[in-house]
């Protein structure tokens, strides 16, 4: 299942798929959590998950939304971060791997330069901001750190 707004990531990659459980009766219980309170993609995700389960032959499907514990970008694994970078979206810095509490600049996903700056703190979706590379001139999106 791909995220409707970031179709390079699966719902599992993004960390919004909390659990999938098949009960003895054959009923499937799915738990999703939103990235941001107003994320409009959540409705589409619910529909996509339900459609996929129906297509796989399940007839009794329930998709619940859980707010707690609140989603953070810590849910993004290394593989998810790599997929984002490959799609030209600068991922949130991996705090575990890079052990940097504060990062002043992002790496340009096109040319790798760190001579980049933020154009806007908001972007085309709630989870992204807009940046530009001063070395190659390319604008790019950044998946914002959300802790």
């Amino acid at each position: 299942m791909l995220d409707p707004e970031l179709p390079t990531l699966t719902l599992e990659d993004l960390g919004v798929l909390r659990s999938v459980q098949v009960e003895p009766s054959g009923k499937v219980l799915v738990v999703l959590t939103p990235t941001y309170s107003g994320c409009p993609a959540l409705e589409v995700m619910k529909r996509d998950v339900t459609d996929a389960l129906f297509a796989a032959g399940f007839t009794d499907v329930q998709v619940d939304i859980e707010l707690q514990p609140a989603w953070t970008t810590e849910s993004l694994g290394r593989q998810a971060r790599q997929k984002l970078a490959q799609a030209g979206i600068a991922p949130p810095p991996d705090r575990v791997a890079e052990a940097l509490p504060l990062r002043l600049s992002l790496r340009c996903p096109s040319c790798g330069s760190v001579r980049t700056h933020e154009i806007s703190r908001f972007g085309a979706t709630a989870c992204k901001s807009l940046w530009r590379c001063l070395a190659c001139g390319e604008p790019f999106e950044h998946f914002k750190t959300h802790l």
Partner: protein
Amino acid sequence: MSSIAAVVAPSDLVEVALGLGDDCLILSYRLSEWTAHAPEFEEDVAMANLALDLLGQARNLLTLAGELEGRGRDEDELAYLRDDRQFCNLLLVEQPNGDFAVTMARQLFFSCYQVLLYRGLAQSSSPALAGIAAKGVKEATYHLEHATLWTLRLGDGTEESHLRMQAAVDQLWPFTGEPFLTEAAWARLCDARVVPDLQALRERWQAEVRAILREARLECPEELGRQRGGREGLHSEHLGHLLAEMQHLHRSHPNATW
């Protein structure tokens, strides 16, 4: 915890959830009015994002209010089929957008309140409220950062931007006291540790907002404003106009979808 929950009247929780939900809904609508009118494209996107976060919080809070009320009203019925006297949002959030400085002053005042409120609510003995607040506090914090940056930039900017930012603070200051007035339902819930103490929030809000205004070379009165009535359904003339536009489609074509 269960003994605490037992002494809480559901009607008190409904009242509080409705008030906080209405704040989010009305401010979300006001911010969405900027779409395609903002001074620069990036701000257009920014305000649409703020509006979207607040709309999500409004949906969570109004859905909760409807469930607790137990009369079968869902988020849409609460948003679209109540009249102005039944809305219990703060007067601050219904104030017209004015110029960009007014919108940012309103955001600064509201987001600072919301950050402090949600931090307290995240510790609530009500798991439902705690979940909504723990989610919303991150969004509100980002909104506050945005409003702070603009307040500093405009307040400590050109002569013109300073004058406009000061005028915006003056215009909206009368509405700064209302968020911290403790109604009877709030006091009972505060005793049961469902909601935080508004007096403590008031002190923190004053310290934080006054520090930002000082850094932006802006002045404000010693006392918080005294305008009130929103929580009891007594609104300024602006809310009726807002609702007429916001509710028109749903009332003319009930349950329309596209």
